[in-house]
């Protein structure tokens, strides 16, 4: 084999679920260690660096100045950047109030009005990685899917572009022949949400909460009107849309309100 590619996994704000998914890859994880040099993986090894990276895998959203500095350093050191999971891709659940203002007030309500902590942490409102640097590939999910991770990483290592399904959750839900929860009157976000999870929640009779982030092409105004007709309040619908919607949802909601006006 030619020179092994240097890969690092770097973690920002999130639950570290993506590192756990990688650790759970079993025999494929051992294979991965065989074919690449893993130089950064905080959950698995104590020696971690950011230097001459071929591929950097990012999990979590950016919420402090020091994370931002690290992200920029990674971008400068890496040929290919991959955002793992909904937090890194879209901002995650911690970005649900993005753009609503009064962020410092909200921060201090939780962490106290003490400026000492604020000045020391230099926190900022949670945003996805692509707000600050160029991201080459995205693997959404909460957490991401093992199969989609292995597909993406194998393709990049072998210098072929990865391809993840751009379809919504409903597609796989139909493949599984589930009874449609939206048709039953539930607040299901399947049509708006990026698929690939195997429609796992609707398959267990639980409406989709949108945890894989917004699908690229959706018809939000139509689903919004449909949910209003089904008796849900605007507040409730927006809260659900925003829960995992991150930055793309801010834009989508703005467009929707303009369209409906």
């Amino acid at each position, binding site marked *: *084999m030619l020179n092994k590619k240097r890969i690092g996994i770097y973690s920002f704000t999130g639950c570290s679920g993506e590192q756990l998914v990688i650790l759970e890859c079993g025999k*494929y994880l051992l*294979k*991965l260690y*065989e*074919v690449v040099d893993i130089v950064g993986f905080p959950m698995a090894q104590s020696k971690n660096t950011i230097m001459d990276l071929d591929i950097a895998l990012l999990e979590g959203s950016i919420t402090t100045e020091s994370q931002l500095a690290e992200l920029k350093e990674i971008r400068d050191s890496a040929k290919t950047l991959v955002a793992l999971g909904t937090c890194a891709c879209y901002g995650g659940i911690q970005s649900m109030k993005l753009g609503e203002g009064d962020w410092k007030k909200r921060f201090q309500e939780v962490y106290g009005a003490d400026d000492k902590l604020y000045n020391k942490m230099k926190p900022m409102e949670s945003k996805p990685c692509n707000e600050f640097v160029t991201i080459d590939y995205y693997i959404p999910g909460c957490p991401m899917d093992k199969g989609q991770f*292995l*597909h993406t*990483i*194998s*393709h990049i*290592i*072998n210098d*072929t572009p990865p*391809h993840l*399904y*751009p*379809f*919504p959750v*409903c*597609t796989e839900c*139909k*493949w599984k*022949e*589930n*009874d*449609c929860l*939206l*048709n039953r009157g539930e607040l299901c976000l*399947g*049509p708006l949400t990026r698929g690939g999870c195997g429609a796992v929640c609707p398959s267990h*009779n639980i409406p989709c909460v949108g945890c894989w982030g917004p699908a690229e*092409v*959706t*018809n939000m*105004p*139509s*689903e919004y009107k*449909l949910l209003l007709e089904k008796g849900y309040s605007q507040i409730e619908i927006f809260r659900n849309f925003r829960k995992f919607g991150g930055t793309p949802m801010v834009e989508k909601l703005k467009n929707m309100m303009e369209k409906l006006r």
Partner: protein
Amino acid sequence: MRVLWMEKGKLKEFFYSMKAFGELWGPIQKGKTRIYGKAENFSDLKLEPGRTALPIKKLIHPSKFTMFKYDKQEYSTKLENIPRRVILGVSPCDIHGLLKLDEIFLEEEPDPYYEKRRDNTAIIGISYCKPCCDSCICQSMGTDVVDEGYDLFFSDLEDFYLVWVGSSLGDDLVRLNPAVFHDDIDRTKLEKFVECKKERDKLFACSIDMDVLPDIMELSYDSPIWDELGDKCLECGACTMVCPSCNCYNVIDEVYLSEGKGKRFRYWDCCIFKEYSLVAGDHNFRENRGERLRLWYGHKLNSFGPYGRPACVGCGRCVDACPVDINVLTVARALLESK
């Protein structure tokens, strides 16, 4: 064509004797939905009017499957691993759906994956003295009766079955247990069949005027209806997934981590999705959702590709599947009512 009859109580015995051919499948209940599934016992089968969530295409043209695996030397399709199956209880509209797929996958360049599954599957159709459901449009589409595409076809005439033998495989299946079949069909049995058909014809709750609709579709190319429907469509793809005549798929290669190995798989694609019509250079032939819906309904209600006939088999699945009520019935109605 050979026609036989069978006493109602003998189907169970015949069902088990078909185990000699392969796995036994049929309409079974899964939670709130009916699906084509493996039937361990005859009592699992739902042999009564009603519709499965997905059509029979899912067993011949699966939603996602591996075509072949490869390494640096060779590739292997493992077609020999495709099991032999008997599917008892296939509705006439689903058989018509298969006939449409046959035209696409078997004529000219036969698709080996489709062909092998089709060859390994015994299709045993069934019809009842009632329509399957309230949203059936098969009568309008001429798909409520079926002349070909099955191996055996059972007409459930309440206290007995009339059984049509549609292929040499069907004949082989009869020979697995010839004692349960009789060929002395008397006049009363035939009269019962005719009466049942006439009664059923009166019970269809929905219809589409197919005499005029294809021409109206042709004239409605620039109709504002398409944009109105496009504004409403959720682009969830449900209509295409449940449609017996939808056959589009995408092909993706899965490269393994090392050793130059990988596999190629297929999954159902959908022309309602924007990415479907995206081509090199970021151009899109059907940029608007309305244009994509017009294409789909053009295929279903006017003509599909080289075959010149509407692809809709009138199963009514899109009527139940679409969350925003866009389906062959509402679209046909909107077009027929617009000027």
